[in-house]
């Protein structure tokens, strides 16, 4: 909406927007700043903003105590793996709901969403027993499966809303030209839905990265992602604000950076059919 505004108005709006933006971002900034302080400075009163002795000590302590890289790698494998697997299952499902809808489509969709409402803690013991018997405890594969299932409804729903916006005529034209269903989906539908798929992918990586119940309860050492890494710093004996901040910074940095770089893609598709 390019409207003509006076510079004064633009300046006011800019000031307000920046103040609010910085206020919202402030807790994260503060965490990052604290991670460079010593423990004593981290709880000092009054707190110092930037005029303190910057130190990398906390990061080296955290790295020495817990293998950051392994947790990071597990987080990447689990979140990307579950998202990709989810997309592979969801794309055909969303296709069929968007282009061959039946009376029940809407109900199926709502039912799928409602499976997300089931409180995970209520089914922990059954799942733990199943995982134990299947040898899936503390494996990346196990977590990929669980997180795929957890996020599948959201993936299907997001894709469904994008697919709905694609004119059926284009797919029909492709079919007229003799395209098989497989190539229709792979070569016609998917390229057209790339923005939507990209956005779904990003959103689900974020959700999977931050999932803290299953990732914590189904892992021990080998497959533990960053959520478990954080659990080692949450309330140890002694002063811990600075170390906690360093661990937090390390845990959120990758997803924050990814989110910022891809925010255009994320935003473009993040409509859930809300925009016509």
């Amino acid at each position, binding site marked *: 909406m390019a409207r003509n505004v006076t510079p004064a108005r633009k300046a006011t*709006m800019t000031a307000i927007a920046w103040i609010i933006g910085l206020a919202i971002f402030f*807790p994260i900034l*503060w965490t990052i700043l604290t991670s460079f302080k010593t423990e004593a400075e981290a709880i000092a009163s009054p707190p110092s903003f930037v005029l303190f002795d910057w130190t990398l000590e906390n990061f080296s302590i955290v790295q020495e105590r817990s293998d950051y890289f392994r947790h990071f790698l597990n987080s990447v494998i689990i979140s990307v793996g579950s998202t990709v697997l989810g997309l592979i299952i969801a794309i055909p499902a969303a296709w069929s709901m968007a282009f061959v809808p039946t009376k029940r489509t809407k109900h199926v969709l709502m039912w799928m969403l409602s499976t997300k*409402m089931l*409180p995970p*803690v209520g089914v922990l013991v059954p799942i733990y027993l199943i995982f134990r018997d299947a040898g899936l405890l503390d494996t990346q594969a196990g977590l990929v499966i669980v997180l795929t299932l957890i996020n599948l409804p959201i993936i299907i729903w997001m894709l469904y809303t994008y697919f709905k916006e694609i004119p059926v005529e284009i797919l029909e034209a492709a079919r007229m030209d003799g395209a098989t269903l497989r190539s229709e989906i792979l070569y016609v539908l998917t390229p057209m839905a790339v923005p939507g798929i990209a956005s779904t992918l990003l959103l689900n990586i974020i959700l999977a990265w931050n999932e803290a119940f299953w990732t914590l309860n189904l892992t021990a050492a080998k497959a533990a992602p960053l959520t478990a890494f954080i659990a080692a710093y949450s309330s140890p004996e002694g002063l811990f604000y600075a170390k906690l901040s360093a661990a937090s910074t390390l845990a959120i940095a990758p997803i924050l950076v990814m989110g910022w770089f891809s925010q255009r893609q994320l*935003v473009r598709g993040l409509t859930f059919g809300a925009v016509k």
Partner: protein
Amino acid sequence: MPTQHSRVKARLMISPAVLLLLGWMLIPLGLTVYFSLLRYNLLMPGMEQWTGLTNYRYFLTDPAFFDALRNTLVLVVGVLAITVIGGVLLALLLDQPIWGQGIVRVLVIAPFFIMPTVSALVWKNMFMNPVSGLFAHAAKGLGLEPFDFLAHAPLFSIILMVSWQWLPFATLILLTALQSLDSEQLEASEMDGANYVNRFFFIVLPHLARAITVVILIQTIFLLSIFAEILVTTTGGPGTATTNLTFLIYAQSLLHFDVGGGAAGGIIAIILANIVAIFLMRMIGKNLDA
């Protein structure tokens, strides 16, 4: 028009997803129903016995249960109100021509990327702590008595933390919706002499209705199972002031290690969630021709 042939294919293509979710739902659900009828404490193996509906009776008559229902409702509605209203305002602001729009947008969406556990730890320790938190420092700086957030306004504090995390999500969806608003329509109304408030209520808000519905739907799904924030900050207290349904089931399952009781709670939560789902579906049905 879909042919008979394509219908069959469509069934085939949707079936993996449906079967997987059905399995994901039914197998744990079946086991949970079974466990909920047993006296089954994880710490006392070999003592499992059939108890019929005892677990349900205890869960439903637990005084904490009604507190939990109320808290769940307050939490969901509170967060929804803050994020939707705040989101609309923020979206309107970010839609204005401003300098550095991209950077402001990056700042605003950042909380959405933060792990709930991390966000709760940071808020609790570094902001809301009444002795060494930043809010306490600020209050002392202004000569005020520091406010003990988690003791005296526990549920509000949790709502605040959760809203901080979900505000970006609401803002983003609403902003995208806002940007799709036909500017000619706005300009026309401007010509007609409609003021800003009128334009907002008669053109902008109706346009955002769908987006708001979507925000409510998605957030409700996640907000019903808020857990990490409560565990890290208040562990459901003081008293039962911040115990929501999910946390109550957690307490049954992993503090009492009462699998039977936890399972019964889980089943009750699933039933309630489905009632909410039906309600939401009605709402969506009106607003979203899915």
